[in-house]
């Protein structure tokens, strides 16, 4: 949130409440205010694709508002026709007719003058997992599989704690450099990678996934991403080459323990 931008906008909108502006002016102020708030009022700034989409929706809504009342519409229509036909407005009309094409041309110029951007690639953040993977020759069922040590939590808390401790060790010797001490994806080397390492504290990451999904992502890493997750820029290694199956399950236990999230369970079969 950028309050320096938002505060004046709010003030102007409050002032607007007490002024008698005609519908066109009113809509124009709203449109500009929405544009400024969306483009500059949010920190960090939104990507331009999103600004475009939001403004599209706002424009649609304001157009709906303009046309919802017949008297408003007639007012606008009459004003437009007057502007287009009345002799009195010839000069401003002529100016508009000249200015708008210039503006359009200038816009093209700005586009051309913009610094080139490296090709952007939309990534699929949660790619669908395969139904099973082969881990060191062993098939791991991702659909119906479970973390084999999860049940210890209830059955043998002592053993479960041992697995957690092992998971903690694995995490802090392998994962912490990128995913960070607090599992927020802000490790020592995180700033050097794009996409940035995943933030496990975020309730929209591991809290939404089954443990087998994590196993797949850890074991297969970026090289094992399916095609829709290209461009494979992720630096996540395929840990199957460096960790044992037990270590991976343990670190998964630890990740949930540390963040306080619960893994998604397989939906009940009805």
């Amino acid at each position, binding site marked *: 949130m950028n309050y320096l931008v938002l505060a004046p906008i709010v003030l102007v909108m409050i002032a607007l409440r007490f002024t008698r502006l005609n519908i066109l002016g009113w809509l124009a102020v709203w449109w500009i205010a929405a544009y400024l708030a969306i483009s500059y009022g949010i920190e960090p700034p939104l990507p331009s694709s999103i600004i475009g989409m939001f403004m599209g929706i706002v424009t649609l809504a304001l157009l709906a508002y303009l046309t919802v009342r017949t008297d408003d519409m007639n007012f606008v229509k009459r004003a437009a*026709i007057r502007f287009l036909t009345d002799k009195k407005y010839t000069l401003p009309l002529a100016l508009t007719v000249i200015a708008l094409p210039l503006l359009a041309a200038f816009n093209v110029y700005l586009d*051309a003058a913009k610094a080139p951007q490296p*090709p952007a690639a939309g990534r699929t953040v949660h790619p669908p997992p395969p139904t099973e993977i082969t881990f060191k020759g062993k098939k791991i069922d991702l659909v119906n599989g479970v973390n084999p040590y999860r049940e210890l939590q209830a059955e043998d808390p002592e053993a479960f704690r041992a697995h957690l401790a092992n998971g*903690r060790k694995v995490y*802090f010797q392998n994962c912490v450099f990128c995913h960070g001490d607090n599992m927020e994806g802000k490790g020592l080397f995180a700033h*050097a*990678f*794009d996409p940035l390492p995943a933030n496990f504290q975020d309730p929209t990451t591991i809290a939404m996934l089954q443990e087998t999904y994590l196993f797949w992502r850890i074991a297969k890493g970026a090289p094992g991403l399916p095609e829709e997750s*290209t461009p494979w*820029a992720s630096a996540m290694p395929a840990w199957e080459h460096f960790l044992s199956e037990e270590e991976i399950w343990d670190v998964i236990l630890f990740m949930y323990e540390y963040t306080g999230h619960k893994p998604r369970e397989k939906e009940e079969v009805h």
Partner: protein
Amino acid sequence: MRRFIILYLGLMVMPIMLPAQEKILGTEAQREAGKKIYDQKCAQCHGEQGDAHSVATPFFRPQPRNFTSGIFKFRTTASGELPTHEDLKRSIKNGMPYTGMPPWPEFSDRQLSDLAYYLKSFYPDFGEYGDVQPVALPKPPAYSEASAERGRIIYEENKCLDCHGNSGRGDGKSAPTLKDQWNQPIRAADLSKRWTFRGGPTRADIFRTFTTGLDGSPMPSYNIQPPEDQWALVDYVYSLGQSERPNYATMATAKGITEAIDLGRGRALFDDAPPALFPVAGQVIEPGREFYPGVNAMEVRAVYNAAEIAIMLTWHTMTADTLGRNSPLLPVAPFDPQAPVAQGGEEFSDAAAVLLPSKTPEGVEKPYFMFGDGKNAMDIWFADLAKDTAEFFVGRGSKNIEPAGNGGLSLVSQYEEGEWSAIFKRSRVKEGGLSFEEGNFTPIAFTVWDGFNRERGNKRGLTSWYYLYLEPMHKESPLAPMAKSGLLTLVILLGIVAFARIKYNGKA
């Protein structure tokens, strides 16, 4: 006997001291609350007992602080004294950039305080010496160029350059020998990168750091008089780095030039090319893991003409290692957490490499960023700085790197005041391989080996994929599309006016 008296006296004053004690050491409940946080968030690195014996200790350099030693680097108190309560809180909250200690903005003031109380319980003296008084920090006067210039003299007079180097890049002559209190190698700060300052990047931070010193490290405290000179030194250090934040780039832009690319001109060739700074991370993934790379950033510039392209890599390193040899093929023993940190020696030279896909990629698919993969090969332009010729490798994975002659590459390199520059040159077109075309984005990545750090093979610093953009020499004039769009708008507008006039004239 004497000890007995002290104990006796101590017992006598105990009732009086208790409230004061509580202020310094906190209540049982506060320490307990601190311990809870500590055990969950801190013990992995600083150890359950606060003694920095932990699963993660060997993986970080500088190593996590040992709280039982009572030595703290970042304080507002005089050299050798314990830090204040606020100092501890600040260090936890802000963390230390470019070390394993992250900032903890999510801790509330109360949590920070509880933690600080608990940390103090690891070292008994906190209770004994009463409340430590911070050294008063004067309000910083405004920065001035003149003061910075004067600061250069203070910098020289106080022998700062012995460690920090003539240009402040951390390359002083005694820098390679520095060890901390625990006999661990330690590096002098690179003063040209203020964002890496552990104690903070502001002028007040710099002032505090050199007036109070960094206990446990070879950085002593300086009492420079008169006080203006203290600020002159601060201003000089401040003037060495351009900003508090690294301005990391996402792409490098190659500038088109018309003259021939003459490597004899060296760095001057790139005077007009915009620099792009890329962060370098340790290769912590595959065997040969490098947890503390010697280089943390690399600057890239590039120029091209009709026939050739030249890419210059520059980076800061403490020593120019031009003895020994280096190669991506050299074997590395697996990381051994038990082994002491090895450095120095003349076995391995400094080296750097430019990594590029072997073929212009179709779409967004690139070789795996490590050293390519079986599906997509990677070109490695390699510079062993002990030699003056470039080498060329094709990578299909870390264990599948083949030397392939020199790949048509030429190389010049130069070390000056803590900064290496290595310039590669190649013809822009390669039959059946990667060609550089005007207006195209080519994926590019970099790797750097610090010989002093005994980096070689897969033990290295690396970047992820970025892009190299060849800025077209002749930009297409936007006039035609501008005219087109303007005319189209004009026609539409005139159409609207004509329609309205015919239909509504006189009726509105």
